[in-house]
């Protein structure tokens, strides 16, 4: 029999980063987990119209060990790295127990916080630093023994030892939403808070969908426009690159020709937490109109480490095929 060495084990001195990143994709109940030598990949999806994923690099952990599973015999191909489904809400609540001393963790989870969450998450850094500065050590251990086994989390803090075994469910291989990064129709980078403000503003008319319109820019057309029509009215937020400001809202824009597409508004709401936690967002449309939002999240990893670590949270949203809302670029006529 093989020696009992866990296939995967990692130690984190603070679950704050993990909680922050996982919360960004927590619009779904279950998450798909993929373990590799480089880190952990968590992904969530809602139907096949929206998908989000975050990669927790092994550098975020104090220690990280992964033993790839052995093939059954030398002739076989090495088996796939493990992937399974877990209940994401249970994982978040469990990690919450660990950061009980962290005031931020007691906020409502599951709702879509906006600015409030952003501010709270910003202040989370100070609490964690205080803990470290005072030499208060808490330890959080993750481990996974292999197919069928539970994902175990073992935490010790303030005199209490907590052990959690998360049931791992078999996952169907889900095709990622394809995104053609080599064939973009729009790419822009802006500070995440502007996107958050825009979405919050659009939300006030209670819309079913949001339309993204982009153009190279002219007197009559904005470079980027986010608009929505709802029962309570219409709203549009226009962005332009024509500004003398040193810090333009659209830090960069690539848009060779006019294009637009619409997306279910619920998908944008699902990304609100990520918008609130991120510093910057890269918004891209590919030639099929698939929207990719890539959020850059700054993590304050330890005061000794001069460079702050960052992590990325990605959202992919499939456009609505609707002859009213969308005019797809690329000459493909909408079939009707």
């Amino acid at each position, binding site marked *: 029999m093989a020696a009992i060495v866990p296939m995967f084990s990692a130690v984190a001195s603070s679950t704050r980063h993990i909680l922050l990143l996982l919360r960004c994709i927590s619009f779904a109940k279950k998450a798909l987990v993929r373990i590799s030598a480089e880190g952990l990949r968590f992904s969530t999806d809602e139907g096949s119209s929206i998908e989000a994923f975050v990669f927790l690099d092994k550098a975020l952990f104090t220690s990280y060990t992964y033993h790839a599973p052995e093939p059954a015999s030398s002739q076989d191909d090495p088996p796939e790295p493990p992937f399974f489904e877990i209940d994401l809400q249970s994982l978040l609540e469990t990690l919450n127990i660990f950061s*009980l001393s962290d005031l931020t963790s007691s906020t409502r989870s599951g709702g879509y916080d906006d600015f409030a969450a952003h501010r709270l998450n910003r202040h989370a850094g100070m609490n964690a630093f205080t803990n470290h500065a005072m030499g208060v050590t808490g330890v959080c251990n993750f481990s996974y023994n292999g197919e069928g086994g539970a994902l175990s989390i073992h935490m010790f803090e303030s005199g*209490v030892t*907590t052990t959690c075994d998360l049931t791992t469910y078999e996952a169907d291989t889900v095709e990622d939403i394809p995104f053609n990064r080599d064939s973009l129709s729009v790419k822009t980078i802006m500070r995440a808070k502007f996107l958050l403000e825009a979405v919050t503003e659009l939300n006030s008319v209670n819309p079913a969908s949001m339309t993204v319109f982009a153009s190279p820019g002219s007197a009559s057309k904005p470079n980027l426009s986010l608009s929505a029509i709802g029962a309570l009215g219409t709203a549009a937020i226009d962005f332009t690159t024509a500004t003398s400001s040193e810090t333009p809202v659209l830090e960069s824009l690539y848009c060779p020709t006019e294009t637009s597409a619409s997306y279910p508004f619920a998908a944008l709401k699902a990304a609100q937490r990520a918008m609130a936690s991120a510093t910057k967002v890269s918004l891209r449309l590919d030639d099929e109109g698939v929207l990719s939002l890539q959020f850059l999240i700054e993590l304050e990893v330890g005061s000794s480490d001069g460079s702050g670590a960052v992590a990325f949270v990605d959202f992919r949203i499939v456009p609505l095929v609707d002859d009213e809302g969308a005019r797809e670029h690329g000459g493909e006529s909408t079939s009707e």
Partner: protein
Amino acid sequence: MRFRAEIRNVSTLTKFTASLASIGHIAWVRLDDKDVRFTVIPEQGTQVWSVISPNTIFQDWTIQSAAPNNTINLEVPLAPLQRALRSAQNAVAANIRLTKKDNIPLLSLTITTMAMHSSQQPTSSLSDRDNHFSGNGRAPSTNGANDTSSAFREASVDFFGPKADREIVITQDIPIRVLAPATVEGLHEPRCREPDVHIVLPNLNQLKGISERYTKLGMTTSNPRTPRNNSGIAKGAKLELSANMHGCLRLSLKTDAMGISSLWTGLENPELDSTQLAEGEDGLANHPSTRMKELGDASGQGEEGWATVRIEGRDWGRVLSVGRLGGRVIACFCDEHALILYVFLPEEDEREGGGGESVLTYYINSYSV
């Protein structure tokens, strides 16, 4: 019947009332020569029976009734009592008495507060005003100006209304019912067999925080195990609480999506006082907890030696709110049957403390699997 007392410690009484109000809406209050008892028996869930040494909350109290030991039994609604005590938060003095108005029996709370801070020195704004009126351009630091300004200050006090030291007297009436002896005769403290394990609980605020997370965990997942009442509505997560005679306490929860447990070690198991037991020394030897001591160990690993109860998460959270009072809490576990918590209020005033300890006793039923 008469009852009148000055409230010694409004803050303690407020926290105490809040803890009771978490359990139920109405309290049976029993007053007599020796002590004050508050009992809350809700329709469902945990009961609390408390005995308070009068000196903990009252001073200068008088009680008189036709019953033996001057016993008075009242039914007191807790929300109005809480509201009344809120007015007394910053009181200089507060007293409570049993009275009747328009033939309705009441507990009447008379609260004296100060309107604003009293100060001995004239405030700068007053002296500015004085200078303006008296017309002298001198700063009010010289004696001459002070005499003038204090005369003016008194005048200005009359003119502008009282600025310093103003007493406000607030009366809060709490409607109550006087209970006949027959009504309360049937109420008895729940009896339970000798507990298997008794242990001092860790910091209640920490325990409450973690328990609340467990309660949330038990409800988050579409957990088919979440018990439902007759209408099919989820009643609340059942947490499993266990302890052993080696200082270990364990809280666990199992759902389909996960199994989680938290372990405290190094807690104190208080020694039983054999004089308190029915059979004295023999009773001690045969006591269930003595036998439990032989099982399990201080590491908390292993399945032996645990006494377990299953409690409803939200009910448990409400019980734990008694942590706001501070004090030592001893938990007595009757395996698979019941949990009894003894909360000993901290004695604040040593010289008055002699004669009585204040204890709240919570009786919590265990759910079967």
